């Protein structure tokens, strides 16, 4: 048989990647399918399964706690994704200027991203500790903004804020890194042309920098959205009382009356929403 070079190359390519495609398929597709399958059953602790149709979904959609978790998740997502992107952008713009010790500062900025979650979580819990924490010391004793001490992490409402702050602090270095690498590749003459066209610093930012950063920012926000919709340890370790969907699922699946079928239905819903979200985002924002 006479194959063109391109055809032969693509055949060879398929042969190379076939094993990994197989493994990945099993590792990713199988759990997802199994999850969907499980969500139609009432799973007993003994392992027996009883087909119950859409009952798990009915229960989920009439559960007020689910909607609460959904709202918390949306707040968490918006806060962390927007927050870490904006902070990352601002720091990148700053670090793109020249000043003494810039290289040292650039490296130090990456620290939160390197640090292991478990250790920095303790640090943060200490900061907000109601008795010995720095936060209460500052607010109550030094600045005297408030007369009483608060447990910001103890209260689920303010704990959400702390969890968001923590995520921004931990993950803005990633945004910063991606953004600054793009910033450095923007051609200087575009800024000069914009200056000749009458743009000041803000005009140049809007008309040159932002369009150049558009896809980096878009991709960054997409990645962060996906990661954070499934984020568990950062939230759970710092403030277990903040119930985003993954944590809500965890409580449903592994605590109290353990109900795997119900938990599976939550994941399926979450997965469906995520898939839709990504689909529209990729189409509209990234224009793939």
């Amino acid at each position, binding site marked *: 048989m006479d194959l063109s070079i391109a055809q032969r190359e693509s055949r060879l390519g398929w042969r190379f990647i076939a094993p990994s495609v197989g493994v990945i398929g099993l590792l990713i597709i199988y759990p997802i399918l199994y999850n969907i399958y499980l969500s139609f059953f009432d799973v007993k602790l003994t392992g027996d399964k009883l087909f119950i149709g859409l009952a798990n979904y009915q229960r989920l959609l009439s559960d007020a706690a689910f909607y609460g978790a959904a709202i918390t998740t949306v707040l968490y997502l918006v806060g962390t994704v927007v927050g870490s992107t904006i902070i990352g952008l601002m720091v990148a713009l700053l670090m793109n200027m020249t000043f003494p010790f810039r290289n040292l500062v650039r490296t130090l900025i990456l620290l939160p991203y390197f640090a292991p979650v478990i250790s920095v979580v303790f640090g943060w819990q200490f900061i907000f500790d109601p008795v010995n924490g720095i936060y209460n010391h500052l607010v109550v004793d030094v600045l005297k903004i408030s007369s009483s001490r608060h447990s910001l992490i103890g209260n689920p409402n303010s704990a959400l804020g702390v969890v968001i702050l923590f995520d921004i602090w931990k993950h803005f270095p990633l945004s910063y890194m991606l953004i600054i690498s793009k910033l450095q590749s923007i051609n200087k*003459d575009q800024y000069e*042309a914009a200056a*000749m*066209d009458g*743009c000041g610093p803000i*005009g140049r930012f809007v008309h040159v920098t932002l369009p*150049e950063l558009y896809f980096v920012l878009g991709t960054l926000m997409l990645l962060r959205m996906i990661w954070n919709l499934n984020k568990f340890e950062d939230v759970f370790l710092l403030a277990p009382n903040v119930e985003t969907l993954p944590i809500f699922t965890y409580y449903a699946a592994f605590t109290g009356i353990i109900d795997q079928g119900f938990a599976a239905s939550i994941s399926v819903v979450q997965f469906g929403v995520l898939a839709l979200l990504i689909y529209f985002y990729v189409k509209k924002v990234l224009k793939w």
Partner: protein
Amino acid sequence: MAGIRLENINKKFGKTEVLHQVNLEIGDGEFVVLVGPSGCGKSTLLRLVAGLEDITAGNIFIGDALMNRIEPQHRNIAMVFQNYALYPHKNVRENIIFGLKRAHAPKDVIESRLSKVVNILGLEDFLARKPAQLSGGQRQRVAMGRALVRDAKVFLFDEPLSNLDAKLRNQMRSEIRRIHREYQTTSVYVTHDQVEAMTLGERVVVIRDGYIEQQGTPMEIYLHPDNIFVATFIGAPSMNILDARLFDGYVELEGCKLVMENGTPGQHRELPKTGLPVKLGIRPDFFIDRRHAGDGEALAVIHNARIDLIEPLGFDKELDVQIGSQLMKVRLDLRTQATEGDTIDLCVDMRRTHLFDIDTGQRLQ
């Protein structure tokens, strides 16, 4: 509109000084062309006027206002960049009108100026394209349009036609002339191209290594170059610079006695004219085949020039000829019948030749 005045401009990049004590005055509405070899500082000079570089020392005035510390966006200058510098995310139309929009020009003004420029530059079919979808020459035309559309005090052009084919370049040259005649905007134009310099410039400024070598009208520069550099840089093919000796009333070139008529440069020098070594400059275009020289003309004759090579150019023939040990380029019209290897007698009007000091390269008056 406004004139430009550069006073004692110095520009250093780090330790290297690329412009030295540049003084230049450009009148309101004047069209000045800067020419010079690559790396001589032409773009740098433009960028200083635009405010894209800080001057190291000296003053820049536009109109009567001192510009040294004024940001480029406040100078109201339009510029065509050597490497186009188009906005990659905007289409051609948006690229062109961006400056007008920033200046809050009314919609109808924007539209009428846009359509005029687009028409002149032949960009009608490309308005919706992004710069990446254009050829180099098309991009250059967009860059040109972006400047011409503006109602700026000063236009700066950095080799704006370098990427166009010969036909389009001729056409654009005429258009630039027409536009300048209409708007009378003070313009500074950088080019390598002789023809552009000669045809566009009301004044030509020749720069070498960050110094202004000479400035004047194109014909002044062409007919009375101040030194060998200017003489050879302006005009194509380049002026022949030959080793000769200056005697009382004549120049001796490879054994030929070239008598200087009244009006020959260097004729009346009070120097010991006993064989002073000089450089003799003769443009290739100013030779005449002796067989076709008119009778009445007072011409000096170079005998027995040997023809090494003939390049027919259509109306003209370009010859490499050898006299003694020296080579020259000669341009004769198509009547010349001589072939390669022949010898030929060449006539030259000594009033159109130039004598230069052998050491300094400066013109001998």
